[in-house]
């Protein structure tokens, strides 16, 4: 089976000469469709850089990254934007919802940007929000929701439109433990229910343990990983 996300000997450096900092030093990683992979490691190990590269938010200094078989380096700016709109969802620690839009309008936004009619976009947004356990008051604004609920709206927005890959960068970082558990449980349900592959960056073992596979980074390199858990035993 073709990997949905592939890193082949990827290097990422910032600066040059004596000030060069190598954030990633030869990362090779493949994430299968519908697989949930957690990435752990100490601060500054390159976890977030890895996620930025996967989401085409940054470009690698060397090596190849493919999403669903497409090499990211071959995409122009428009192609990268389209990839982020259609194929890859991103969830951050900060709750990046648009405050002037209601919950449902936030989730409809990527669909409408793709030209989907408002009626079907609304229906799909409701479906995505319900999958996140949000059934009521969807016409209220983000500030009317708790932190955990806002993060669930952000995840619904990140996966709406059957995107194949969700990249989550410390999505529980601003939540209390109980809300964080709820959010991770909902993220963990995406691969088996919808076939979405998930790459989760976290420093919390309790959240990483939901993943099928945990990859450990240190000093920009993968130093170890847990054996992959077969889909049948998830």
């Amino acid at each position, binding site marked *: 089976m073709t990997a949905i996300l592939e890193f082949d000997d990827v290097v990422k450096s910032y600066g040059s000469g004596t000030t060069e900092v190598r954030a990633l030093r030869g990362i090779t990683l493949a994430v299968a469709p519908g697989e949930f992979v957690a990435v*752990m490691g*100490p601060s500054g190990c390159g976890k977030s850089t890895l996620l930025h590269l996967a989401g085409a938010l940054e470009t690698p200094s060397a090596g190849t990254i493919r999403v669903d078989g497409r090499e990211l380096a071959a995409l122009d700016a428009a192609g990268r934007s389209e990839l982020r709109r259609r194929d890859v969802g991103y969830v951050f620690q900060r709750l990046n919802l648009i405050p002037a839009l209601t919950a449902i309008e936030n989730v409809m936004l990527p669909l409408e940007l793709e030209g989907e009619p408002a009626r079907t976009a609304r229906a799909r947004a409701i479906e995505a929000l319900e999958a996140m356990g949000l059934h009521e008051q969807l016409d209220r604004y983000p500030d009317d929701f708790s932190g955990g609920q806002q993060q669930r709206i952000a995840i619904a927005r990140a996966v709406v439109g059957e995107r194949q890959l969700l990249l989550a960068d410390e999505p529980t970082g601003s939540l209390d433990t109980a809300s964080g558990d709820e959010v991770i449980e909902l993220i963990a349900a995406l691969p088996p229910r919808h076939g979405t592959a998930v790459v989760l960056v976290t*420093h919390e*073992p*309790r959240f*990483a*343990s*939901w*993943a099928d596979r*945990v990859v*450990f980074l*240190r000093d920009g390199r993968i*130093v*170890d*990983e*847990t*054996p992959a*858990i077969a889909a049948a*035993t*998830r």
Partner: protein
Amino acid sequence: MSVREGLLALLADGPRNGHQLKVEFEAVTGGVWPLNVGQVYTTLDRLTRDGLVMRARPNGESDTNDKRFELTAEGREELAGWWQLVPANDPPPRDELMLKVLFATTLGRSHALKVITEQRTALLAQLQAHRRAPRTAPDDSAAAAMVRDALIVRAEADLRWLDLCEARLDAPRKGRSR
């Protein structure tokens, strides 16, 4: 704790025979501590010898057909003392993981990091297994769930400690003092 304290705790709820004690002991401990009846009766013999339990006397008189045991006043006192005793990490706390990592540091940073990484990966795999346990046993007891919670929280604590060890090994390299 030993089987002895467990039996005293169960008998505080009223007289029980050896088989009842075995079944209840295993249920209370969430299935992580299986007992055989022989162990139960051996312990009851010792508790009787020490004056902490005796044959049940429901009407104030002994009945040879009644196979149940009950606490004596001394037994209740012993049990009360056990409830109040705080589990102590008597120095030195000889924790296997801790000692392994401490010895690993004597062979240099690189070896210590290798050992920490291997232990961390194994602990995370255990945590993944604990996390999945509820999905395969939806009707398990509160005791079993509490045992699972304990295993998860302890694995998390060990993982956190390994993170701290790694940070301490990195501290001199990065010019920090801790």
